[in-house]
């Protein structure tokens, strides 16, 4: 049985095979950790990226984990969705240690609470940030920028 068949048999997962080396695995929020663990046992040892897409029209955050297997040369992308109003996910750093740092970044840039990762909430990249997290779609970058920094106007330009 090939690895793709094994992925197809994952519990509660919706599988989309986009190309032969790119497979999407969509799961519920509660099943993410179990799915990641199963995939790691199958040979997907590398977490390339963990990040978030702000699906503001659906009122959801899409959290995705890009896994790679050097044995099968396949990318598996595990996706899950959480509510924008109360975004809480569970940490994956017991399975993939590099997730620890990714989670710190997403919790700072999107304001997502990560349970079990004690470093989330500590300052990571931003310093003295007092606004809503900057990578959310409803954050107005131009407004923030013009309030906090002074633009240079060249001569003859209408202000």
């Amino acid at each position, binding site marked *: 049985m090939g690895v793709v068949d094994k992925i197809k048999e994952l519990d509660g997962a919706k599988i989309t095979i986009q190309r032969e080396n790119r497979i999407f695995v969509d799961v519920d929020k509660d099943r993410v950790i179990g799915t990641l663990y199963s995939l790691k046992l199958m040979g997907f040892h590398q977490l390339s990226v963990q990040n978030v897409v702000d699906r503001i029209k659906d009122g959801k955050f899409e959290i995705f984990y890009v896994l790679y297997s050097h044995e099968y040369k396949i990318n598996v992308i595990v996706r899950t969705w959480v509510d924008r109003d109360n975004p809480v996910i569970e940490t994956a750093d017991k399975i993939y240690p590099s997730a620890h740092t990714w989670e710190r970044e997403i919790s700072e840039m999107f304001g997502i609470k990560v349970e079990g990762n004690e470093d989330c909430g500590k300052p990571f990249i931003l310093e003295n940030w007092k606004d809503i997290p900057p990578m959310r779609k409803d954050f107005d970058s131009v407004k923030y*920028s013009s309030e906090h920094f002074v633009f240079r106007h060249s001569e003859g330009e209408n202000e």
Partner: protein
Amino acid sequence: MERMTEEQVKTIANMLRKRSLWMIHYCTGCGAMELPPTMTSRYDMERFGLAPYVTSRQADILLITGYLNVKTLRRVITVYEQMLDPKYVIGFGSCALNGGVYWDSYAVIKQLDRYIPADLYIAGCMPRPEAIISAFRHLMELIDSGKADGYKRYKRNLAYYKENQRKVLG
């Protein structure tokens, strides 16, 4: 022998200073890419007496290569205040000048000279090594004529600079 006046000492000091400038380059953005050809044999800035240097305490020129965000600005100010007088600041590229392509970013400051006194700007995205060499030549002229007085302005208007720094850095 007659003693030299203070003015004459300054003139001679400036004349010597402009021929031996050590530069610390704070490579925040993509601007650092243009420096290796400037430093090495292709454009060879050492023929003007300029040399890259590694520590802030011994350097004369602080070259800000590229955009500065709030986080790096804090470090740049530390580096600038560590440097000994006389010290000169060159803002490199359009990002240091007015924000450049990052004009709407939540993190990038738009005007370097509000926070530390810039003696000179090199406009362009990217400025070529010819432009950098030309800026150094221009800085030499400014030093020779005593117009490169950014470090004096910083001391004189310290309250203004500190207030601006406090506004963005908190």
